[in-house]
């Protein structure tokens, strides 16, 4: 009789804080292996002829070479394939051919050793299932490509081991393979983790060693949390999607928890980084992680276990909020977080049309503003958009000149010039959401820019955008 799986409370709390030890990771890995075995069993049952014969051959092979078969089943892409295939079987869309999970195929390795800690990963550019991690895989790597990956890892691994040894140990304990994926035009580096591929990471070729280190940390955390969520519910089912500081589309509570957990590690990574750019990343991520954890705990959407886990996460990040940072980096980090929220609202929240018309009439009549109820716009899928103001902040912190116009004025801290610039843009085009978000950064109280934009749209050319903003933010 198989025994029930469990986590001790101490393990759950350590996991929440990002401090899982090797024994806990081993427990998660074992649970994931068992989960893949169950998936294979269900594949055999769902396809009694082909699936059962295929499973029986695998079972025969296990009798002869148990270690080899278990290693193949534990490979992250096996779990991803099994979940995908079983789901397809249940909807009648499964491919007829079943793979040879034990096929010998050459796989490139990415390895690095530092101070007694070794990272040894498959750089899998060939597995048929490598497209199941959520991003389009790159084509087979040439030797030059593989050398670049190896060189980057050789530089990235010391950054982790020297500065963040416990995190480095977690990465080494969890990760098994990296699947190179095509770069995303909208992002400077992109990565993903499938819930069904514990220890597998899809990653575009990193821009530099620090990006590689941060990406590995980030995806390791996703893998760990996926495994925990397979064992124990941390979030109650259902509920509306909402704001997440890390994505431009609305996310479920589980997605927000994933973001907070992944960025917990990334925030710690940047904490010790040199220079204003690292300070900027640290400052904006720590606030976002703390706010997301607080929001999850306040929303009542966490289970009792989820509350334990998230409280530990929140306790880990809390002391970082008091760490002094470079003042310019800190100001821009606060602005970047406010900017993201404003852009998210403008992108995803639609003001009720009747309310927008009533607000426009109230504005024209000089009456005080009424409520502006909003609803989520129809989902448009995963979104990662470039924000020119954020790009400019990165360039500015790297020592570049501020760009001309209001974004540059905001970077310099010239609020009056920034405001004048955004107002000019909005007078020219009241539908300029980038300018509305910018205006919200330099207008105290304009925390619902979507309402101001909706009033201007409803009122037509007679509504002066700065006057509408002032009207909406005036004390009652």
């Amino acid at each position, binding site marked *: 009789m*198989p*025994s*029930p*799986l*469990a*986590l*001790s*409370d101490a393990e759950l709390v350590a996991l929440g804080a990002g401090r899982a030890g090797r024994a806990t990771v081993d427990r998660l890995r074992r*649970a994931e*292996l*068992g989960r893949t*075995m*169950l*998936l*294979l*069993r*269900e594949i055999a049952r769902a396809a009694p002829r082909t699936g059962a014969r295929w*499973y*029986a051959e*695998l*079972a025969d092979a*296990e*009798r002869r070479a*148990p270690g080899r078969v278990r290693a193949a089943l534990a490979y992250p892409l096996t779990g991803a394939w099994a*979940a995908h295939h*079983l*789901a397809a079987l249940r909807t009648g869309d499964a491919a007829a051919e079943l793979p040879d999970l034990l096929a010998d195929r050459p796989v490139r390795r990415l390895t690095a050793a530092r101070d007694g800690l070794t990272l040894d990963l498959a750089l899998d550019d060939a597995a048929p299932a490598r497209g199941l991690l*959520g*991003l389009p895989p790159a084509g087979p790597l040439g030797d030059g490509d593989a050398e670049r990956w190896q060189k980057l890892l050789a530089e990235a691994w010391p950054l982790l081991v020297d500065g963040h040894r416990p995190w480095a140990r977690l990465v080494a304990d969890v990760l098994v393979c990296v699947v190179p994926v095509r770069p995303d035009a909208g*992002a*400077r*580096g*992109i*990565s993903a*983790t*499938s*819930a069904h591929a514990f220890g597998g990471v899809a990653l575009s070729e*990193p*821009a*530099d060693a*620090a*990006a590689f280190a941060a990406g590995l940390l*980030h*995806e390791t955390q*996703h893998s760990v949390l*996926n495994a925990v969520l397979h*064992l124990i519910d941390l979030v109650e089912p259902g509920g509306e999607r909402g704001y997440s500081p890390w*994505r431009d589309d609305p996310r*479920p509570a*589980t*997605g927000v928890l994933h*973001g907070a957990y*992944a960025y917990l590690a990334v925030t710690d990574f940047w904490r010790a980084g040199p220079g204003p750019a690292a300070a900027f*990343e640290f400052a904006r991520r720590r606030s976002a992680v703390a706010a997301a954890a607080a929001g999850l705990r306040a929303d009542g959407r966490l*289970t*009792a276990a989820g509350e334990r886990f998230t409280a530990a996460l929140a306790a880990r990040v809390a002391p970082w909020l008091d760490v002094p940072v470079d003042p310019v980096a800190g100001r821009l980090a606060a602005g970047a977080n406010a900017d993201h929220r404003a852009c998210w609202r403008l992108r995803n929240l639609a003001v009720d049309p009747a309310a927008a018309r009533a607000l426009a009439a109230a504005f024209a009549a000089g009456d005080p503003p009424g409520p502006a109820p909003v609803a989520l716009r129809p989902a448009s899928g*995963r979104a*990662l958009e470039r924000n020119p103001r954020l790009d400019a902040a*990165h360039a500015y*912190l790297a020592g570049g000149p501020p760009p001309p116009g209001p974004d540059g004025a905001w970077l310099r801290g010239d609020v009056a010039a920034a405001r004048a610039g955004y107002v000019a843009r909005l007078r020219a085009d009241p539908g300029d959401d980038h300018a509305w978000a910018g205006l919200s950064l330099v207008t105290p109280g304009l925390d619902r820019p979507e309402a101001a934009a909706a009033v201007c749209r409803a009122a037509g050319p007679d509504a002066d955008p700065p006057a509408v903003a002032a009207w909406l933010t005036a004390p009652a």
Partner: protein
Amino acid sequence: MDEATGDGAGPAVWRSTLVDVTELSLAELAATGDDVLAHALRRLAADLESPDEPIAGFNSAF
């Protein structure tokens, strides 16, 4: 489903509905009845049907 059990001073263990099948061989697992695995299979099915598989997008560079 998942529950904490302890001695009253606080939760000690968070039990999963998944079971550890890694001690079984694949042949033994195939022969294990659905009744023994019922809770685990239900959880597996629910995971597969979940529309919310988190996929991370990550700007990893400055």
